[in-house]
């Protein structure tokens, strides 16, 4: 039972993104920047976006944290690349609504895989951290997104 819950959270795809994160590294010439931190566990990620004509053309991230936060960051970068700012914000909203509440998952594509995390309430913020940082980046604020704000 507990093993099933663990397997539901630590899905293959999550572990794979954790081991080989996509778009990992800083981005020269970025137009948008977001920073997310969890002061309680030390997870810390920075996101770099290059936006042209309202479209996220390139994206990169740096930082370190647990398997859930890192795979979430990695999958975020693959999901928002090529999207308009508006579509990226919509996706972020839908994902947060899905993971924090009972929001629908149909439009989330492979992000549905984070459903297992909902079984572990203290780990939910590991999955949301990078999306919070993305929102900061898109809003162009100077605030650090914190899980404890």
């Amino acid at each position, binding site marked *: 039972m507990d093993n099933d819950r*663990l397997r539901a959270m630590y899905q293959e795809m999550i572990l794979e993104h954790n081991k080989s994160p996509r778009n990992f590294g800083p981005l020269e010439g970025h137009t948008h920047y977001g920073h997310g931190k969890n002061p309680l*566990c030390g997870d810390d990620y920075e996101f770099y976006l290059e936006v042209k004509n309202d479209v996220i053309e390139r994206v990169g991230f740096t930082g370190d944290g*647990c398997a859930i936060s890192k795979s979430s960051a990695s999958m975020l970068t693959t999901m928002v690349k090529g999207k308009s700012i508006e579509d990226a914000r919509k996706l972020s909203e839908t994902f947060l609504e899905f993971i924090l509440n009972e929001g629908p998952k149909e439009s989330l594509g492979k992000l549905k895989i984070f459903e297992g995390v909902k079984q572990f309430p203290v780990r939910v913020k590991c999955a949301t951290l990078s999306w919070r940082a993305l929102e900061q980046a898109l809003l162009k604020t100077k605030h650090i997104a914190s899980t404890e704000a």
Partner: protein
Amino acid sequence: MTTMLNKKVDFPVLNTTMRGNDLVYLDNAATTQKPKSVLETMNHFLTKENGTVNRGVYFLSQEATKKCDDSRKSIQLFLNAASEKEIIFVKGTTEAINLVAYSYGELLKAGDEILITELEHHANIVPWQQLCLRRGCILKVAPITDDGHLDLNEFKKLLSSKTKLVSFCHISNSIGTINPAKEMIKLAKEVGAKVMIDGAQAVSHLKVDVQDLDCDFYAFSGHKCFGPTGIGVLYGKEALLEKMPPFMTGGDMIETVSFQSSSFAELPRKFEAGTPAIVEIIGLGEAIKYMNSLDFTEIQEYEQKLLNLAQEKLGELDVRLIGPTHTKAAIVSFVVNGVHAHDVGTILDMEGIAVRVGHHCTQPLMKRYKVSSTIRASFCFYNNMDDVDALVRGLKKVREFLG
């Protein structure tokens, strides 16, 4: 292991199950479990004897006052302080350090130096930083060596006639180092500095004698030595406490009050404004009674055996141990290579094993070791070798799940 202390029987929580397994509680550096005697004493007081202290003329209040006085007396004897006046009740170690930073800090001036070490908990860093901002003092930090011990030569070099206060942990909460307190105090006294010891981790592991140490202040928290949360102790030398202004002011700490001025109560009440944490004080008194029933020499030997076994078995796994391997309390800090501490903590939790993962309120120390977080297993005399085995099995499961 030849002997088992079998103390789990005294602690109800330790006889419960967690997620279908026997609870394996290895977060004793964060908080210890409470023996039955403490729980029963507190419950009895609240259900049969509850009353306030110091002012009631009725029976309940007189009894409550006497019980709190008895508790203070037992703490005085426990620490071997010279007088009950030197035992001040506070919320915990954090408040004790803040009390000294605010009150003793009033006696400091710009340019005076405060010396701490790289091992410190945030509670023994931030109050001094804030004091430096208020008074223009300078904070100095004595480094540790790679193996997690204080670099005594560097410590000596940082001491000078400018050093007014040295504050350090007796035992590191994060990596378990036992500081050579007596030697450090002697060195600090040679330059005329006062010494504060953060004893939060020490009182449950070793016998503390404040007169033998010759420290000026010593602080600990009740909940880390088998008592309740919300209560702790600041020991201070009487002559020094007399010179210090009050920290918090209000009821209970006054002698007379008028709208023009007030005069303050004698020690220790000068530092105890407001209705105290009565049932917590009584609970702490009972916890001290429990500790007095233990043989600390035996406990130290036993905990060292647990520590050695844990270090040996963890050494066989793909982990990196952080900090010292000797002259340390039974606290093991480590990282599982390639796996984040948080993921390790979740998987251990599924096995009913409670460990702390994170920076343990010692971010500068984590930075020193170039890690963002570690897994910390902190043992107590009620743990046994089965707990060590459970931890090792749990860590093998981490590999199974996370590769």
